[in-house]
């Protein structure tokens, strides 16, 4: 066990280094940061000087090592566009992204779980079929399109919800939250729904198939035979048994929600890290891009590591490779 963890930790370190290295390889190709930092009238000589100063003329390995060396000491550099330390910019925006992601996941679960249970218990009913098809329509449109349509209907035509931003936020320590104000709630609903739409469909379908499987197991049949009420069987036994795999997958999806909420954040001008990253791409702001990618990598590595550890503990079959090696 200890050696497994150690090995995985070392591997994770290598993954992070590889991410940073690939990131630096690609920065050469996404545009010129300098042209976004100077006005039209700036001479070429001055541009060249700035490029030199930013270290953009150094070979990629040098730039990479410099970044890694600094990052190891907690210094992620200064944003080209905003002139501020990148770690501070990201830290300021992380609460917005986390709040949105968790909220999206909660909405997805609140709608997805009951629908999943219903469609799983009554797969033949027409209402179930309707739910299944409607849930598919929701994910058959690109996110940006869904988002703008929602804005058009609920923000512009009905005037019910806020069309952009986070609303009024409250500072609690280093954390900021929009959930303590009316405007904050009005702001989070649409982006969270948009972001959670895919997960909602996903969870609903997952629960449905797990439910259908569990309902056919002997364990439920025994429970029925013992005369336990249907309600108790459905929720006390069946649902509980489906939740373990669902929780695992939901946890894994949370990572991708946080990482890829970029589109939603852009459409709703949600001031999170995804929006920052997108702006950084459009201005070739290398320090922000590299740090963001590293952050996402840490997130994924951590989640994968946890999941693998859980599997390792729970499911001995997946340990087979270890056994084989030992033998």
């Amino acid at each position: 066990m200890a050696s497994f963890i150690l090995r995985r930790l070392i591997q994770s370190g290598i993954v992070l280094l590889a991410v940073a290295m690939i990131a630096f390889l690609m920065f050469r190709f996404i545009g010129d940061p300098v042209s976004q930092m100077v006005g039209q009238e700036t001479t070429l000589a001055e541009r060249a000087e700035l490029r030199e100063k930013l270290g953009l003329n150094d070979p990629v390995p040098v730039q990479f090592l410099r970044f890694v060396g600094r990052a190891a000491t907690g210094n992620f550099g200064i944003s080209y566009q905003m002139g501020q330390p990148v770690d501070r910019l990201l830290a300021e925006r992380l609460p917005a992204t986390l709040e949105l992601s968790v909220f999206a996941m909660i909405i997805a679960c609140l709608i997805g779980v009951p629908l999943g249970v219903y469609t799983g218990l009554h797969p033949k009913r027409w209402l179930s079929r309707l739910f299944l098809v409607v849930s598919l329509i929701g994910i058959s449109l690109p996110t940006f399109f869904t988002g703008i349509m929602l804005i058009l209907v609920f923000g512009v035509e009905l005037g019910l919800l806020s069309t952009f931003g986070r609303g009024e936020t409250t500072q609690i320590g280093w954390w900021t939250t929009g959930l303590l104000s009316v405007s904050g709630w009005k702001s989070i609903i649409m982006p969270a729904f948009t972001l959670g739409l895919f997960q909602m469909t996903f969870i609903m379908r997952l629960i449905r198939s797990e439910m259908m499987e569990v309902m056919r197991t002997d364990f439920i049949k025994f429970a029925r035979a013992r005369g336990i009420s249907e309600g108790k069987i459905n929720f006390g036994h069946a649902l509980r048994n489906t939740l373990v795999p669902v929780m695992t997958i939901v946890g894994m999806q949370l990572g991708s929600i946080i990482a890829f909420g970029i589109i939603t954040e852009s459409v709703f001008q949600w001031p999170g890290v995804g929006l920052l990253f997108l702006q950084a791409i459009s201005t070739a702001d290398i320090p922000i891009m590299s740090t963001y990618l590293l952050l996402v990598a840490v997130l994924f590595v951590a989640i994968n590591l946890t999941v693998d550890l859980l599997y390792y503990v729970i499911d001995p079959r997946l340990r087979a490779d270890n056994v084989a090696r030992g033998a």
Partner: protein
Amino acid sequence: MTSNSTGRFLPALRDSDAWHKFKGSPLTIGAAIIALLMISSALLSPLIAPHDPFDPRAIDLMNSLIPPAWHEDGQSSFLLGTDDQGRDLLSAILYGTRTSIIVGFVSVGAAVLLGLVAGLLAGYLGGFIDGFIMRVVDIQMTFPSIMVALLIDGISRSLLPREQHDQLALVVIILALSLSIWPQVARTVRASTMVEKNREYVQAARVIGRPAGIIMVKHILPNVMGPVLVIATINFGVAILGEATLSFLGVGIPASEPSLGTLIRIGNNFLFSGERWIVLYPGLTLALLVLAINLLGDWLRDVLDPKLR
């Protein structure tokens, strides 16, 4: 369907259950018909489209923003109206659907191929190779497809001669999408492989000394194809949507030869103005296409997912 096939692929499709389920679901039949219709009309677009939307000489700016034919100002020669360049929207949609389908098909195909190989190797061989492949998967999952698209675009532009840049956009999108899909395939295949390789028939094959390659291809592969097919179908829809999203983010198919995604990206600008048809019909086409594919995916899942059998 494949009732008389003697191949070892997709054993599930062979039993009459699949066909039975298909016949029993009007929704699936509808989806299949729609998908078939859309795909065939898209592939035949050069023959059936009323105009050639890729030929600039045939496009007249003075024809721009004509509403669909049934509107007051509509013209019968432009059934679904025209876009801001004066391009016939129906023809553009037909051609665009073709591009989108090609993007979806090729990118998912490449992703499945890559994911299968990687997943089989990782799951069967285990150890160092497994660790290595899975860490590559981790790295891959870290990069949003837009970054991958920008990277491939940049690298190929600097490596290829200028004359070949024209066709680059399509290749870039396909590569970016397949790179962002293959990790999922690889993970699924790896998990299934790990389960399969401990089954008795694999153990037996190993005992009699069959080479690992043969075991993987002949014994394990057919048994992991079910979930892979399901994932592939779902990701076909995801890839088509992904193409639209990349277009929205500014790395898409050029507007002179638009895909569905590009049409929606351009049409998006007209959502607030009166000319909503520019985005409405491409959007509907995309939604219908993806929906039909997803419904077919559902049916496949019902048929192939061992959990549900």
